[in-house]
C-alpha cells in the first residue's frame, strides 16, 4: 500500500486544532452549555397531542397562561409531539403536573403526557457534580493506566488528545446550543474510552517500531506507524460510525443527542490520535532511548 505522508500536515493541523480548542473554550466560557433539566433543575414534559392543529405557538401560549416562568416549547420528532421545558418544579404540590394537564386539556384539547421529568435544585446540583466527577475520574484513570503501560511522553500525548476531543465536542454542543443531559455525560465518557483506545493502538505500534529501528527519526517513525495501523483505524471508525448513525437515525428522539455526541467524539478521536497524539511525541523528541531506558528499569 502507498504510504501517506501524514507527518507533512502535523503543523497545519496542529494550528487548526489549537484554533478549534480556543474557539471551543471561548464558546464554553461566554456562551456556556445548554443544560437540560437533569443539571439545571426544572420540569420537562413530553406531550403528544391528538389534533394536527396544535402548533408550537398555540402550546406556548397555553403554557404561558399557567405562570410557569420561562417556557421553552420544541417539536420532538413528530408533528404531534412536543417537548416543553420550564424551570419551575414541583415545589411540593403533588397535584402540580395534574393541574397543568387539566388546564392544557381545556385550551388545546386532549393531551397525552408521554414523559415527565421533574428535578429539584438540590438533585440537579448533585447530578451535575457527579457528572463532572465522573468525567474527571475517567480522565485521571486513563492517565494512570497509560502512565503504567507507557512512558510519560506517550501519556502526555494521549491525554492532550483526550482533552482535545472532549473540549471540541463540548464546544460543538455549545455552538449549536445542544442540550447537555445525563446521557451526554455517558457519551463523553465513552468518547474518552474510544479516543484512548484509538491512540493506544497507534502508540503500541510506535513503541514496537522504536525498538525495531534505531536509525529512523521519530518524525518519520510516527508516520510509518500511522500508516501501518491506518487500515484498522479506518475500518473500526467506520463500523463504529455505522452503528452510531443507525442509533442517530432510527433510535428515536431520546437518543439523538447521545449518538450525536458520540459521532462527533469518534470523528475527533480518530483525528486526534493521528494529528495530536503523534506530533506530541515528535515535539517531546521521543527516541529509542526513551523506551530502552524504561525497559531497563
Amino acid at each position, binding site marked *: 500500500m502507498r504510504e501517506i505522508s501524514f507527518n507533512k500536515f502535523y503543523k497545519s493541523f496542529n494550528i487548526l486544532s489549537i484554533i478549534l480548542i480556543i474557539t471551543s473554550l471561548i464558546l464554553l466560557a461566554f456562551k456556556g452549555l445548554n443544560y437540560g433539566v437533569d443539571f439545571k433543575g426544572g420540569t420537562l414534559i413530553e406531550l403528544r397531542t391528538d389534533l394536527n392543529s396544535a402548533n408550537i405557538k398555540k402550546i406556548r401560549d397555553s403554557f404561558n397562561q399557567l405562570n410557569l416562568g420561562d417556557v421553552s416549547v420544541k417539536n420532538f420528532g413528530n408533528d404531534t409531539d412536543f417537548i416543553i421545558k420550564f424551570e419551575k418544579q414541583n415545589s*411540593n404540590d*403533588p*397535584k402540580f*403536573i*395534574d393541574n397543568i394537564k387539566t388546564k392544557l386539556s381545556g385550551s388545546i384539547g386532549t393531551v*397525552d*403526557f*408521554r*414523559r*415527565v*421529568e*421533574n*428535578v*429539584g435544585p*438540590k*438533585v440537579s446540583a448533585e447530578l451535575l457534580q*457527579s457528572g463532572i*466527577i*465522573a468525567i474527571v*475520574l*475517567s480522565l485521571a484513570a*486513563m492517565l494512570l*493506566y*497509560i502512565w503504567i*503501560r507507557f512512558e510519560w511522553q506517550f501519556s502526555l500525548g494521549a491525554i492532550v488528545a483526550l482533552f482535545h476531543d472532549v473540549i471540541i465536542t463540548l464546544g460543538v454542543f455549545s455552538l449549536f446550543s445542544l442540550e447537555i443531559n*445525563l*446521557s451526554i*455525560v*455517558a457519551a463523553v*465518557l*465513552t468518547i*474518552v*474510552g*474510544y479516543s484512548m*483506545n*484509538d491512540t*493506544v*493502538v497507534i502508540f*503500541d505500534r510506535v513503541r514496537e517500531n522504536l525498538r525495531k529501528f534505531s536509525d529512523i527519526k521519530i518524525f518519520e517513525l510516527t508516520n510509518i506507524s500511522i500508516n501501518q495501523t491506518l487500515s*484498522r483505524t479506518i*475500518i*473500526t471508525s*467506520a*463500523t*463504529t460510525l*455505522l*452503528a*452510531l*448513525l*443507525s*442509533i442517530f*437515525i*432510527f*433510535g*428515536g428522539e*431520546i*437518543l439523538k443527542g*447521545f*449518538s450525536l455526541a*458520540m459521532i462527533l467524539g469518534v470523528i475527533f478521536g480518530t483525528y486526534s490520535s493521528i494529528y495530536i497524539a503523534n506530533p506530541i511525541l515528535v515535539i517531546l523528541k521521543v527516541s529509542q532511548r526513551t523506551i530502552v531506558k524504561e525497559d531497563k528499569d
Partner: protein
Amino acid sequence: MLYFSKLRIFSVIIFTLILSYFSISNFFKIDDNFFSKNIKLGLDLQGGSYLLLEIDNKPVITQKLQNKVMELKNFFKDKNIITRNYTVDDNSIIFDTTPDKSDELNNILDDDESEINPYYQQYKSHEFDFVKDQDSFKLTLSKYGLVLLKNASLDQAIEIVRRRVDEVGTNEPNILKRGNDRILVELPGLGDPGRIKSLLGKTANLTFQFITQNTEESFGTEKLEFEDGSENAIVSKRIILSGDNLVDAKPSMNSQTNETVVSFTLDRVGAKKFGKATSTGVGKRLAIILDGKIISAPSVREPIIGGSGQISGNFTFQSATDLALLLRSGALPAPLNIIEERTVGPDLGQDSIDAGIMSLIIGFILVVLFMIYKYRVFGVIANLALISNLFLLVGVLTLFEATLTLPGIAGIILTVGMAVDANVLIFERIKEEIKSERNPIIAFDSGYTKSRTTILDANITTLIAAVILFFMGSGPIKGFSITLGVGILTTLFSVYFIARLFTAFYVIKNKEKESLI
C-alpha cells in the same frame, strides 16, 4: 497456537450454548424458576414512575430536643441542681444554672456513666456535644446522634411509604434507602403517579383536640385553619387522641346524613382516653386535625365510649378512601418532599423499545455487510463472532437479571460497532505477517500473538470508562455502563475463543492457498 484441544473446543461450545439459551429464553415463557430468567426492562422502556423522596427531618430534631429538655429538667431537679432559661432553636438547647453548681453540672454531662447519657452505654459515644460558657450550657446533637436519629426516622418512614404504596396495589414496586435521608420509589407500569404522590406527600399526623372558647391565641392554645380555608379556630394544645391509637379506618356512608365519612376503630388505650375526654367535654367542639389543618370540628353530643367513631368533612368517596388509607398506614415521622420525579408513559416505553431494536438490527446489518465487503471469508468469521457475541452479551445480562434501559440498548449497538475492532486488529496484523512469513500457520499465529497487548490495552481503556460510569451514573446511564462493560468482556471471549477457532479451522484446511486473507 492455532491448535485447540478437544476439551477446550467442547467447553467453548457448551459455554456459548448455555448463554445463548438464556438470551433466547427472554422470548419464551418457561415455567421453571431457575431457567426462566428474564432481562428486566428499565422504567424508561416499560414505562413507570421514579420518585426520589427526601425527609425533612426538622420536626424530628425539634421533637428530640424538646424531649431532651424535659429529661434534663427532671434529671437535674432530682439532683437538686437549679437549671433555668431553657431555649431550643433549630439544633441546640441552651440553659443556665447557678454559679455554684456549674462545675458539677459540667461533670455530670461529661460523665460516660451518668444516667443522663444513656446513649453512651450502647454506642460508646455521646448523643449530644456540649459547650460550657460560664454558667450557660449549650447542647447540640453530636454527629453520631444526628446520624442515628436520621436513620431511625428514615427506617420508620420507609416502612410507612411501603405500606402506603402496597395499599394502592401497584405492580412490583421497588422501595429503597438512599443515603440517610432519602427514599427511592420505583413504580413500574405506573403512567400517572398523581395519586401516589399525593399519598406520599402527606405526613398524616392525625390528632383530636378541643376547640377553646377563646378568641385570641394564648398559652397552651394555637390558631389553626380549616382544611377548606373557610375559617380559623383556636384549639387547645392538649392532644386528646392521636393517629397512633387507631387500629383501623375505612370509608363508609353515614346512614343519617348520606355523607361519605371515614369510620375508625381505636385500640383499648385510645378508646379509654376518647371515652373519658368526650364524657367531660360534652357540648364542646372537638377538632379533628390532620397535618395542622382542621378537617372538621363536630360538637360532642354524648360520650363516645365504644372505641369507634366517624370523621366527616365533605369527602368524596376517593378522598375518604385515601384518608382511610393514610390513617391505616400510620403517620410519617417527618414530611417527605419529592425532589426528583421521572415518569415515562407505557406507550413511549414501547416506542423506545421498537426504535432501539430497529436501530440494533440496522446497525448490525450495516456492520456485517461492511465486514464481508472488507474481509470476505474472514469477514464471515468476524460476523460469526459478532453474532455469538450478541447472544453471549444478552445471555450474561439475562443470567444476572440486569436491567435493560434505552441507553443500555445503545450500549449494545455500540458494542456491535466496536466489537469487530479486535478482529480487525488481528486480521490486519496477520496481513502484515504474511508478507514476511511464508508459512501461513506461523503467520496467523504471530498475528494473534503480536496484536494481543494492543487489543488488551484498547479494551481496558473502554472498560475503565464503563466501570466509572457504573459507579457514578444512575438509572438509565447505569444500564448503558453495564451493557458497554459486559460487551467488552463478551467481545474478548468471542474473539479469542470463537473467532479464533473458526480461523484455525479455516487456515489449517486451506494452508496451501495462495492468498488466504
